Protein backbone atom coordinates (compact mmCIF):
# COMPACT_ATOMS: atom_id res chain seq x y z
CA UNK A 1 0.00 0.00 0.00
CA UNK A 2 2.80 2.40 0.80
CA UNK A 3 4.43 1.37 -2.46
CA UNK A 4 1.24 2.40 -4.25
CA UNK A 5 1.34 5.76 -2.47
CA UNK A 6 4.98 6.21 -3.48
CA UNK A 7 4.10 5.41 -7.06
CA UNK A 8 1.34 8.02 -7.03
CA UNK A 9 3.70 10.68 -5.68
CA UNK A 10 6.37 9.78 -8.20
CA UNK A 11 4.11 9.69 -11.25
CA UNK A 12 2.17 12.87 -10.52
CA UNK A 13 5.26 14.70 -9.28
CA UNK A 14 7.22 13.93 -12.42
CA UNK A 15 4.36 14.88 -14.70
CA UNK A 16 3.67 18.15 -12.92
CA UNK A 17 7.31 19.16 -12.77
CA UNK A 18 7.69 18.40 -16.47
CA UNK A 19 4.84 20.84 -17.11
CA UNK A 20 6.09 23.44 -14.67
CA UNK A 21 9.76 23.52 -15.59
CA UNK A 22 9.10 25.37 -18.83
CA UNK A 23 6.94 28.09 -17.35
CA UNK A 24 8.00 31.47 -16.04
CA UNK A 25 6.69 31.03 -12.52
CA UNK A 26 7.96 27.47 -12.25
CA UNK A 27 8.46 27.47 -8.50
CA UNK A 28 4.84 28.46 -8.02
CA UNK A 29 3.07 26.52 -10.76
CA UNK A 30 4.49 23.15 -9.75
CA UNK A 31 3.04 22.88 -6.24
CA UNK A 32 -0.12 24.73 -7.18
CA UNK A 33 -1.02 22.11 -9.78
CA UNK A 34 0.50 19.17 -7.94
CA UNK A 35 -1.21 19.57 -4.60
CA UNK A 36 -4.83 19.26 -5.79
CA UNK A 37 -3.89 16.36 -8.05
CA UNK A 38 -2.30 14.52 -5.14
CA UNK A 39 -5.01 15.12 -2.56
CA UNK A 40 -7.08 11.99 -3.40
CA UNK A 41 -3.95 9.84 -3.17
CA UNK A 42 -3.02 11.36 0.18
CA UNK A 43 -6.52 10.91 1.57
CA UNK A 44 -6.70 7.30 0.39
CA UNK A 45 -3.28 6.54 1.88
CA UNK A 46 -4.19 8.10 5.20
CA UNK A 47 -7.49 6.27 5.37
CA UNK A 48 -5.92 2.96 4.42
CA UNK A 49 -3.05 3.35 6.89
CA UNK A 50 -5.26 4.49 9.74
CA UNK A 51 -6.50 1.05 10.92
CA UNK A 52 -2.94 -0.34 10.90
CA UNK A 53 -1.90 2.16 13.57
CA UNK A 54 -4.74 1.46 15.94
CA UNK A 55 -4.10 -0.56 19.11
CA UNK A 56 -6.67 -3.28 18.60
CA UNK A 57 -6.84 -4.05 14.96
CA UNK A 58 -7.41 -6.93 12.62
CA UNK A 59 -4.19 -6.01 10.87
CA UNK A 60 -5.33 -5.61 7.29
CA UNK A 61 -5.79 -2.27 5.54
CA UNK A 62 -9.32 -1.60 4.30
CA UNK A 63 -9.56 -2.86 0.75
CA UNK A 64 -11.69 -0.04 -0.54
CA UNK A 65 -9.10 2.67 -0.03
CA UNK A 66 -6.29 0.50 -1.33
CA UNK A 67 -8.41 -0.12 -4.43
CA UNK A 68 -8.94 3.62 -4.89
CA UNK A 69 -5.20 4.19 -4.57
CA UNK A 70 -4.47 1.45 -7.10
CA UNK A 71 -7.02 2.87 -9.54
CA UNK A 72 -5.51 6.34 -9.13
CA UNK A 73 -2.03 4.98 -9.81
CA UNK A 74 -3.17 3.05 -12.84
CA UNK A 75 -5.01 5.97 -14.44
CA UNK A 76 -2.27 8.50 -13.86
CA UNK A 77 0.54 6.16 -14.89
CA UNK A 78 -1.19 5.43 -18.19
CA UNK A 79 -1.99 9.11 -18.73
CA UNK A 80 1.53 10.24 -17.95
CA UNK A 81 2.91 7.63 -20.30
CA UNK A 82 0.57 8.87 -23.03
CA UNK A 83 1.20 12.60 -22.71
CA UNK A 84 4.86 12.70 -21.78
CA UNK A 85 6.10 12.76 -25.36
CA UNK A 86 4.27 16.00 -25.97
CA UNK A 87 6.01 17.65 -23.04
CA UNK A 88 9.50 16.73 -24.14
CA UNK A 89 9.19 17.09 -27.89
CA UNK A 90 11.05 20.24 -28.93
Amino acid at each position, binding site marked *: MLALADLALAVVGTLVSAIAVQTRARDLIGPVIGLPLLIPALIATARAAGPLLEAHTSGSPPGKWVAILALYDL*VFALLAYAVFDFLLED
Partner: protein
Amino acid sequence: MTTYGRGLRGLTLATITTNTLALALVFFYAPLDADQGFVQKIFYIHVPLAIVSLCGFIAGGLFAIGHLRSGDRRWDMRAYVAIHMALIFGIAALITGSIWAKASWGHWWVWSEPTLVSYLIVVLMYATYQPLRFSIEDPERQARYASVFAIVAGAFVPLNFIAVRLAQQYVHPRVLTLTGGHLPGSMRFTFLASLAGIALLFVTLWKYEMTAKDMRMQLRRARRQLLGDDAVRPLGRSAAPS
Protein backbone atom coordinates in the same frame (compact mmCIF):
# COMPACT_ATOMS: atom_id res chain seq x y z
CA MET B 1 -12.60 27.76 -42.28
CA THR B 2 -15.28 26.89 -39.80
CA THR B 3 -18.17 29.15 -39.06
CA TYR B 4 -19.32 28.86 -35.50
CA GLY B 5 -22.11 31.33 -36.10
CA ARG B 6 -24.23 28.80 -37.95
CA GLY B 7 -27.34 27.80 -36.01
CA LEU B 8 -26.52 30.23 -33.25
CA ARG B 9 -29.87 32.02 -33.39
CA GLY B 10 -31.90 28.82 -33.16
CA LEU B 11 -29.75 27.59 -30.30
CA THR B 12 -30.16 30.87 -28.45
CA LEU B 13 -33.93 30.76 -28.83
CA ALA B 14 -34.00 27.14 -27.65
CA THR B 15 -31.91 28.07 -24.61
CA ILE B 16 -34.12 30.98 -23.68
CA THR B 17 -37.34 28.98 -24.01
CA THR B 18 -35.98 25.97 -22.12
CA ASN B 19 -34.68 28.09 -19.28
CA THR B 20 -37.88 30.10 -19.02
CA LEU B 21 -39.93 26.93 -19.01
CA ALA B 22 -37.65 25.32 -16.44
CA LEU B 23 -37.88 28.34 -14.14
CA ALA B 24 -41.65 28.40 -14.54
CA LEU B 25 -41.76 24.72 -13.62
CA VAL B 26 -39.51 25.33 -10.61
CA PHE B 27 -41.71 28.06 -9.21
CA PHE B 28 -45.22 27.02 -10.20
CA TYR B 29 -45.25 23.28 -10.82
CA ALA B 30 -42.78 21.55 -8.51
CA PRO B 31 -44.22 20.87 -5.06
CA LEU B 32 -42.70 22.44 -1.98
CA ASP B 33 -40.32 20.12 -0.20
CA ALA B 34 -41.87 18.67 2.95
CA ASP B 35 -39.15 19.50 5.46
CA GLN B 36 -37.09 22.16 3.70
CA GLY B 37 -39.76 24.26 2.10
CA PHE B 38 -38.91 27.00 -0.34
CA VAL B 39 -35.13 26.84 0.11
CA GLN B 40 -35.01 23.45 -1.56
CA LYS B 41 -35.86 25.08 -4.91
CA ILE B 42 -32.30 26.36 -5.28
CA PHE B 43 -31.37 22.76 -6.03
CA TYR B 44 -32.96 23.08 -9.43
CA ILE B 45 -30.21 25.59 -10.23
CA HIS B 46 -27.35 24.41 -8.03
CA VAL B 47 -27.19 20.73 -9.00
CA PRO B 48 -27.42 21.28 -12.79
CA LEU B 49 -24.72 23.97 -12.53
CA ALA B 50 -22.42 21.56 -10.72
CA ILE B 51 -23.12 18.68 -13.12
CA VAL B 52 -22.73 20.84 -16.22
CA SER B 53 -19.49 22.39 -15.01
CA LEU B 54 -17.96 18.97 -14.31
CA CYS B 55 -19.06 17.80 -17.77
CA GLY B 56 -17.55 20.98 -19.21
CA PHE B 57 -14.20 20.21 -17.57
CA ILE B 58 -14.28 16.71 -19.01
CA ALA B 59 -15.24 18.09 -22.43
CA GLY B 60 -12.23 20.41 -22.19
CA GLY B 61 -10.04 17.34 -21.64
CA LEU B 62 -11.56 15.61 -24.67
CA PHE B 63 -10.98 18.68 -26.86
CA ALA B 64 -7.41 18.76 -25.61
CA ILE B 65 -6.95 15.14 -26.73
CA GLY B 66 -8.12 16.32 -30.14
CA HIS B 67 -5.49 19.05 -30.08
CA LEU B 68 -2.63 16.74 -29.19
CA ARG B 69 -3.68 14.17 -31.78
CA SER B 70 -4.21 16.53 -34.68
CA GLY B 71 -1.95 19.46 -33.80
CA ASP B 72 -4.75 21.78 -34.88
CA ARG B 73 -4.85 24.96 -32.82
CA ARG B 74 -8.62 25.26 -33.10
CA TRP B 75 -9.01 22.28 -30.77
CA ASP B 76 -6.93 24.13 -28.21
CA MET B 77 -9.25 27.10 -28.55
CA ARG B 78 -12.27 24.82 -28.00
CA ALA B 79 -10.70 23.31 -24.90
CA TYR B 80 -9.79 26.75 -23.57
CA VAL B 81 -13.30 28.12 -24.01
CA ALA B 82 -14.91 24.99 -22.52
CA ILE B 83 -12.72 25.11 -19.40
CA HIS B 84 -13.16 28.84 -19.03
CA MET B 85 -16.97 28.52 -19.22
CA ALA B 86 -17.03 25.51 -16.90
CA LEU B 87 -14.99 27.46 -14.36
CA ILE B 88 -17.59 30.24 -14.35
CA PHE B 89 -20.38 27.67 -13.96
CA GLY B 90 -18.42 25.98 -11.19
CA ILE B 91 -18.04 29.20 -9.22
CA ALA B 92 -21.78 29.82 -9.65
CA ALA B 93 -22.44 26.31 -8.30
CA LEU B 94 -20.22 27.00 -5.28
CA ILE B 95 -22.09 30.24 -4.55
CA THR B 96 -25.56 28.72 -4.88
CA GLY B 97 -24.45 25.75 -2.81
CA SER B 98 -23.21 28.07 -0.07
CA ILE B 99 -26.52 29.91 -0.02
CA TRP B 100 -28.38 26.63 0.42
CA ALA B 101 -25.95 25.41 3.09
CA LYS B 102 -26.40 28.63 5.06
CA ALA B 103 -30.16 28.22 4.95
CA SER B 104 -30.24 24.52 5.69
CA TRP B 105 -27.17 23.65 7.77
CA GLY B 106 -26.60 27.10 9.22
CA HIS B 107 -23.06 27.43 7.87
CA TRP B 108 -21.78 28.84 4.62
CA TRP B 109 -19.20 26.13 4.30
CA VAL B 110 -18.65 22.78 6.02
CA TRP B 111 -15.09 21.48 5.81
CA SER B 112 -15.90 17.96 6.97
CA GLU B 113 -18.09 17.31 3.97
CA PRO B 114 -16.25 15.42 1.18
CA THR B 115 -18.52 16.55 -1.65
CA LEU B 116 -17.96 20.23 -0.98
CA VAL B 117 -14.23 19.95 -0.45
CA SER B 118 -13.64 17.76 -3.48
CA TYR B 119 -15.62 20.11 -5.67
CA LEU B 120 -13.62 23.04 -4.32
CA ILE B 121 -10.41 21.15 -5.11
CA VAL B 122 -11.53 20.61 -8.70
CA VAL B 123 -12.47 24.27 -9.13
CA LEU B 124 -9.22 25.49 -7.58
CA MET B 125 -7.22 23.15 -9.76
CA TYR B 126 -8.85 24.52 -12.88
CA ALA B 127 -8.24 28.02 -11.56
CA THR B 128 -4.53 27.32 -12.20
CA TYR B 129 -5.22 26.64 -15.88
CA GLN B 130 -5.03 30.29 -16.90
CA PRO B 131 -1.97 31.20 -14.81
CA LEU B 132 -0.28 28.17 -16.36
CA ARG B 133 -1.08 29.39 -19.86
CA PHE B 134 -0.05 32.91 -19.04
CA SER B 135 3.34 31.88 -17.75
CA ILE B 136 4.40 30.14 -20.97
CA GLU B 137 5.51 32.58 -23.64
CA ASP B 138 5.83 30.55 -26.79
CA PRO B 139 2.24 30.19 -28.12
CA GLU B 140 2.79 26.78 -29.63
CA ARG B 141 4.28 25.40 -26.42
CA GLN B 142 1.56 27.15 -24.43
CA ALA B 143 -1.12 25.32 -26.40
CA ARG B 144 0.59 21.96 -26.01
CA TYR B 145 1.22 22.26 -22.28
CA ALA B 146 -2.27 23.55 -21.63
CA SER B 147 -3.65 20.52 -23.47
CA VAL B 148 -1.59 18.16 -21.35
CA PHE B 149 -2.87 19.87 -18.23
CA ALA B 150 -6.47 19.73 -19.49
CA ILE B 151 -6.22 15.99 -20.17
CA VAL B 152 -4.68 15.16 -16.79
CA ALA B 153 -7.16 17.33 -14.94
CA GLY B 154 -10.04 15.97 -17.02
CA ALA B 155 -9.13 12.45 -15.92
CA PHE B 156 -8.83 13.67 -12.35
CA VAL B 157 -12.45 14.89 -12.26
CA PRO B 158 -14.21 11.48 -12.51
CA LEU B 159 -11.56 9.84 -10.28
CA ASN B 160 -12.16 12.41 -7.61
CA PHE B 161 -15.88 11.89 -8.00
CA ILE B 162 -15.57 8.11 -7.54
CA ALA B 163 -13.42 8.56 -4.45
CA VAL B 164 -16.01 10.86 -2.92
CA ARG B 165 -18.88 8.55 -3.75
CA LEU B 166 -17.09 5.76 -1.93
CA ALA B 167 -16.41 7.83 1.16
CA GLN B 168 -19.02 7.14 3.78
CA GLN B 169 -19.98 10.40 5.42
CA TYR B 170 -23.01 11.69 3.63
CA VAL B 171 -24.37 14.94 4.85
CA HIS B 172 -24.70 16.33 1.38
CA PRO B 173 -28.04 15.09 0.07
CA ARG B 174 -27.95 12.51 -2.69
CA VAL B 175 -31.26 12.35 -4.39
CA LEU B 176 -30.05 11.64 -7.88
CA THR B 177 -28.97 8.01 -8.07
CA LEU B 178 -28.91 5.56 -10.92
CA THR B 179 -31.80 3.59 -9.49
CA GLY B 180 -34.04 6.63 -9.58
CA GLY B 181 -33.66 7.80 -6.00
CA HIS B 182 -36.74 8.83 -4.12
CA LEU B 183 -37.74 11.90 -6.06
CA PRO B 184 -41.43 12.25 -6.76
CA GLY B 185 -42.25 12.40 -10.46
CA SER B 186 -43.04 16.08 -10.70
CA MET B 187 -39.80 17.09 -8.96
CA ARG B 188 -37.84 14.75 -11.17
CA PHE B 189 -39.33 16.22 -14.32
CA THR B 190 -38.62 19.76 -13.15
CA PHE B 191 -35.07 18.81 -12.30
CA LEU B 192 -34.46 17.25 -15.71
CA ALA B 193 -35.92 20.33 -17.40
CA SER B 194 -33.60 22.67 -15.56
CA LEU B 195 -30.65 20.35 -16.20
CA ALA B 196 -31.43 20.55 -19.93
CA GLY B 197 -31.79 24.32 -19.64
CA ILE B 198 -28.41 24.81 -17.95
CA ALA B 199 -26.71 22.42 -20.36
CA LEU B 200 -28.13 24.33 -23.32
CA LEU B 201 -26.99 27.57 -21.71
CA PHE B 202 -23.47 26.18 -21.48
CA VAL B 203 -23.44 25.11 -25.12
CA THR B 204 -24.83 28.44 -26.29
CA LEU B 205 -22.31 30.50 -24.34
CA TRP B 206 -19.53 28.26 -25.60
CA LYS B 207 -20.67 28.78 -29.18
CA TYR B 208 -20.95 32.53 -28.69
CA GLU B 209 -17.44 32.81 -27.38
CA MET B 210 -16.06 30.59 -30.12
CA THR B 211 -17.84 32.72 -32.71
CA ALA B 212 -16.45 35.91 -31.23
CA LYS B 213 -12.88 34.61 -31.10
CA ASP B 214 -13.15 33.15 -34.58
CA MET B 215 -14.50 36.40 -36.01
CA ARG B 216 -11.71 38.38 -34.37
CA MET B 217 -9.11 36.11 -35.90
CA GLN B 218 -10.70 36.38 -39.34
CA LEU B 219 -10.85 40.14 -38.98
CA ARG B 220 -7.17 40.35 -38.11
CA ARG B 221 -6.30 38.13 -41.03
CA ALA B 222 -8.37 40.23 -43.44
CA ARG B 223 -6.86 43.49 -42.18
CA ARG B 224 -3.39 42.09 -42.53
CA GLN B 225 -4.09 41.11 -46.12
CA LEU B 226 -5.61 44.47 -46.99
CA LEU B 227 -3.36 46.87 -45.11
CA GLY B 228 -0.13 44.95 -44.83
CA ASP B 229 1.54 43.43 -41.82
CA ASP B 230 2.49 46.73 -40.17
CA ALA B 231 -1.08 47.96 -39.87
CA VAL B 232 -2.09 45.22 -37.45
CA ARG B 233 -0.55 45.44 -34.01
CA PRO B 234 0.70 42.11 -32.70
CA LEU B 235 -1.29 40.68 -29.82
CA GLY B 236 0.18 41.12 -26.39
CA ARG B 237 1.06 38.13 -24.26
CA SER B 238 -2.13 36.55 -23.09
CA ALA B 239 -3.56 33.43 -21.58
CA ALA B 240 -6.05 33.00 -24.39
CA PRO B 241 -5.08 31.01 -27.44
CA SER B 242 -4.72 33.08 -30.58
